[in-house]
């Protein structure tokens, strides 16, 4: 009985400690942001690694998600003779939800896991300790540019996801299903608002980019410095980042769209 109680307490303390370490880690990394401005090349390299290299999977997924949305939406709307609203259905679901969320999930799988493995291996091969020996703060030199790169790349990826998805939906709706082209766009333009919908999607994706990159970097930095430890940390990154994105998405959606 006491053993069970002790294990519960130890687990709770362990989790709290990790959360605390995570936030301290974030604080130190954010402290490195001002020193990034004169060396923006470091950030550009990270935007390349997490943004440009994720472009293909984001664009292809976006295209297919948009096409499927159009097909499925059509099947439902055709019963009501409201197939002109297909553009609204596709655009609103992509811009508000699927672009930021699917984009962030793919980002966690594609870029987040790579970040964790990279940082974890740097730690395992003692590159981070070597930097400290040379009086270079690895949190500022290695981690901070990656975090900023992720924050910049994610909203761009989400916007590309939504735009490609809408084009995919357009191709299926107008090309395949014969929805009127003008009605498709005009209904979309009438119902999608620049600030309520597009801007809140962008805000969402900035938040997701921040959270996913933060989790990925912390898991890598906190990993047990063995090959097994790094592999576990990589798995944890994908799982925790995906859960965080889905949970946060609910909160953000409730905040943004809850009252109307």
């Amino acid at each position, binding site marked *: 009985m006491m053993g069970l109680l002790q294990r519960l307490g130890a687990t709770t303390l362990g989790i709290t400690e990790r959360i605390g370490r995570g936030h301290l880690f974030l604080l130190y990394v954010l402290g490195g942001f001002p020193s990034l401005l004169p060396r923006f*090349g470091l950030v*550009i*390299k990270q*935007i*390349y690694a997490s*943004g*440009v290299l994720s*472009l293909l999977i984001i664009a292809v997924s976006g295209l297919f998600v948009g096409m499927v949305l159009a097909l499925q939406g059509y099947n439902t709307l055709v019963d*009501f*003779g*409201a197939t*002109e609203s297909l553009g609204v259905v596709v*655009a609103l679901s992509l*811009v508000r939800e699927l672009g930021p969320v699917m984009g962030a999930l793919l980002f966690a799988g594609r870029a987040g896991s790579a970040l964790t493995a990279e940082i974890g291996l740097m730690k395992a091969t003692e590159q981070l300790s070597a930097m400290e020996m040379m009086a270079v703060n690895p949190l500022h030199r290695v981690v901070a540019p990656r975090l900023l790169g992720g924050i910049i*790349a994610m*909203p*761009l*990826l989400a*916007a*590309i996801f*939504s*735009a*490609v998805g*809408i084009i995919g939906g357009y191709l299926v709706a107008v090309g395949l299903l014969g929805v*009127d082209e*003008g*009605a498709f*766009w*005009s*209904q*979309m*333009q*009438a119902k*999608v*608002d*620049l600030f309520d*919908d*597009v801007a809140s*999607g*962008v805000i969402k994706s900035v938040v997701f980019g921040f959270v996913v990159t933060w989790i990925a970097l912390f898991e890598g930095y906190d990993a047990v410095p063995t090959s097994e430890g790094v592999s576990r940390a990589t798995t944890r990154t994908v799982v925790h980042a995906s859960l965080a994105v889905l949970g946060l998405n609910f909160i953000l959606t409730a905040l943004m769209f809850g009252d109307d």
Partner: protein
Amino acid sequence: MMQSRSVQIWVGLFVIAGMAALLMLSIKVSNIRAFSNEQGYELNANFENIGGLKVRSPVTMAGVVVGRVSKIGFDSEIYEAVVTLNIDPRYDNLPEDTSASIFTSGLLGEQYIGLEAGGAENYLHDGDRIQLTQSAIVLEKLIGQFLVSQADK
């Protein structure tokens, strides 16, 4: 150095692609309109009530799309809506007494303008006004009229 140059170029392309996507979302998808590449000639028509007609709604003749609504305004002197239609230049032989009505596709669908040709010998030209118009049918009014007519019995 070459390596970092190509990385920078790729990031530049990536940022441009992202910005282009945002621009498309804000201009093409949401309710800010900047570009319209419509060619053709314009006709005006006054309606007492346009219902749910929108800019870029289709203009049809015998069920075929011959143009789009390009502008919707309000004439505050006669309290009527002024709808500008952009007609495909291929259809430049609409008679002067063509009539325009606002129809609904399906019970709850999109509203569009249907044109019906008259028998006049002269054709409508750019900037002309369509004289014969019929307003949109507002469903609530129709239901109201039906209820009133039932109550009288």
